[in-house]
């Protein structure tokens, strides 16, 4: 494999294809590694902006009563926190990982559509500038929740809604372009011998995620357009006065919204399926079943949207249908969890930071999955609906699920990206601080939720005071812990122990056969897969 490592260097020097200098390198780049880096850094920035909003929310909720912010501003914080974290932090982080890793994992020289790749990244900062700028408008930014239910977003919203709609449009276009790129890359640029069933699971999960994106992001674009025309152009999609129906909004939104939650978790499954075998020094247990489980989760995700709407007054037959379909998803998800555990079984395990985050993912994501099952039970959902129990549920699957998997991925591939090992001690500190604080933050939310504390409210009844103070402390600690991560990443980029090509003793896959740091151009001649 040494030929592969030396080849790209020679090629780059020969044709002067190294990166351009300065800002232009990043502005005009069509290199998948540069674009991947841009996505990841952008996502990190958004993670901290969205996180700062979460800190405002937790500071206000530290005590009952209104202390720090106006209720209207509080609502803007919950809304924009959700939007930023979903569309600005989690999704671009996965797209960044896809850009960096998919070509290296399938032996391709770059993404299939590099110029479009540049566009799909560079429109994102505009989308989020528009969204964030709307917070400074007269009357404030969007305050109707990230789910922008009509009529809150139509009849009762202010004019920043137009900016919200356009920013969502741009985010959607960016995601769709990214998804098209991923699919074309995977279908057309696999190295000779890399059949579909030999692809690493991260590639598989992204392949399926990309189809989900193409299927539902246009529906989101449609529903925000309907909100826009209802508000400004006199249509009545969601206005009963004109023959529309506000409940229709929820159906269309969640037809997008439920596949969207799998868009945010399927690549995470791929990451965990890459990391667990490496640190267990065993091949992944049940590769084929993982592929089929991922596909069936994706298909089922189109049949469960109305479990977000049990309290809208559906016929019992429909409630039962959506309840059973939702519970059915637990089966392929369970297959995955069992496969990860079986991979570890009798493995020669070590516990470096990527593995620690992966183990935490498996345990905590499963907790989030179980609270999801509780929410799926229609009659029980009438109690849980719109309480902090729901908040606890989706933060377990998105923070200790998606975000933890992204952290694991960052630690796992950072040596390949930078050529340096990260500081293991600092990484362990980051992990343990995050693990403890995230549970102090989100676990008590189950209890206050079951006791009836509603979500999206800046004030609460006195009996929830102690738990909320505890939750806020956990929140601040979790927020501060993430600064350790930034310090670690900066340190790792600047220097550190040289990483070997394989980096991890048990690592397998094409990306570990090229040099560390990965050369600017890799696999210009495709490797042969046996």
């Amino acid at each position, binding site marked *: 494999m040494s030929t592969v490592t030396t080849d790209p260097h020679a090629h780059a020097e020969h044709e002067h294809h190294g990166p351009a200098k300065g800002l232009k390198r990043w502005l005009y780049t069509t290199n998948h590694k540069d674009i991947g880096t841009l996505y990841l850094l952008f996502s990190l920035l958004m993670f901290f902006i969205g996180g700062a909003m979460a800190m405002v929310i937790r500071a206000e909720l530290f005590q009952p009563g209104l202390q720090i912010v106006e209720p209207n501003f509080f609502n803007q914080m919950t809304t924009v926190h959700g939007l930023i974290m979903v569309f600005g932090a989690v999704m671009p982080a996965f797209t960044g990982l896809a850009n960096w890793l998919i070509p290296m994992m399938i032996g391709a020289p770059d993404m*299939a*559509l590099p110029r479009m790749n540049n566009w799909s990244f560079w429109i994102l900062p505009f989308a989020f500038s528009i969204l964030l700028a709307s917070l400074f408008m007269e009357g404030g930014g969007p305050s109707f929740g990230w789910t922008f239910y009509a009529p809150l977003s139509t009849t009762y919203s202010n004019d920043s809604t137009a900016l919200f709609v356009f920013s969502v449009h741009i985010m959607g276009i960016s995601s*769709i372009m990214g*998804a*098209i790129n991923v*699919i*074309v890359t995977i*279908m*057309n640029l696999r190295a000779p011998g890399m059949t579909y069933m030999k692809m690493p699971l991260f590639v598989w999960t992204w392949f399926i995620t990309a189809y989900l994106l*193409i*299927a*539902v*992001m*246009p*529906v*989101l*674009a*449609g*529903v925000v357009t*309907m909100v826009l025309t209802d508000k400004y152009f*006199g*249509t*009545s*999609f969601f*206005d*009963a*006065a*004109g*023959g*529309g*129906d506000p*409940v*229709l909004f929820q*159906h*269309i939104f969640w*037809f*997008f919204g439920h596949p969207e939650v799998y868009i945010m978790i399927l690549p995470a499954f791929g990451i965990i399926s890459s990391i667990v075998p490496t640190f267990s020094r065993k091949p992944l247990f049940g590769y084929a079943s993982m592929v089929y489980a991922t596909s069936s989760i994706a298909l089922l995700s189109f049949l469960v949207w109305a479990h977000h709407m049990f309290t809208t*007054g*559906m*016929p019992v037959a*429909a409630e039962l249908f959506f309840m059973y379909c939702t519970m059915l998803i637990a089966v392929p998800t369970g297959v995955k969890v069992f496969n990860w555990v079986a991979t570890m079984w009798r493995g020669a395990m070590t516990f470096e930071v990527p593995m620690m985050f992966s183990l935490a993912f498996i345990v905590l994501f499963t907790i989030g999955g179980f609270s999801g099952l509780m929410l799926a039970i229609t009659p029980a959902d009438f109690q849980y609906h719109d309480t902090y129990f729901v908040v606890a549920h989706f933060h377990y699957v998105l923070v200790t699920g998606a975000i933890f998997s992204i952290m694991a991925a960052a630690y796992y591939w950072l040596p390949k990206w930078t050529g340096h090992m990260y500081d293991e001690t600092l990484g362990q500190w980051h992990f343990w601080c995050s693990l403890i604080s995230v549970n102090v933050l989100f676990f008590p939310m189950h209890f206050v939720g079951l006791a009836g504390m509603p979500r999206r409210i800046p004030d609460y009844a006195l009996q929830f005071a102690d738990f909320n103070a505890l939750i806020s402390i956990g929140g601040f600690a979790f927020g501060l812990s993430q600064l350790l991560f930034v310090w670690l990443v900066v340190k790792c980029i600047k220097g550190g122990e040289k990483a070997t090509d394989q980096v991890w003793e048990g690592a397998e896959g094409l990306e570990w056969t090229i040099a560390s740091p990965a050369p600017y151009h890799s696999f210009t001649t495709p490797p042969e897969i046996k």
Partner: protein
Amino acid sequence: MALKHQPVVIKLCLLTAAMFGFGYALVPLYDVFCDLTGLNGKTSTMAATAEAAIPDKQREVLVEFIARPNNNMPWVFEPVVHKIRVHPGEIHRIDYLAHNITGRSMTAQAVPSVSPGQAALYFNKMECFCFTQQHLTAGQQLLMPLQFYVDPALPEQFSTITLSYTLYEVDAVAPVTAETATGDNNE
């Protein structure tokens, strides 16, 4: 290389466009679905013809009437009776009072909704002020009729039907009510 990508890219772009269209197609699909199931509690906008249904004297259903003007609507709007017990199949007539307390002429449209939603399919209106728009001059009062019967086929589990009207000012939502107005003229 680019030639190899083109067919896939075109297919994916078509899929994207189709899914955007599908989002919009959900609107009429939802209406059809609701018409068939009564899911959203919308009653028919057509006048029902009086069938020679034999009233089911054995059974009584409580019909409740709720009426309210929309938030921005300054009229007084209420049913004269708030609830009656009916035998399914019997034709009843009740009146709603509308009073334009403002100093200007206004046009209004009442939008009905039945709860529980599935009972909407069995609530038949032979005559209703909601089929047309109501025009009241400043200070004018009007008794508006509603003639209905409950279909004897109403499933056993429904013993109470609530009919709710919300009254909207038409000028505020001109483009779409123009459409409903033409539909109503046919009846």
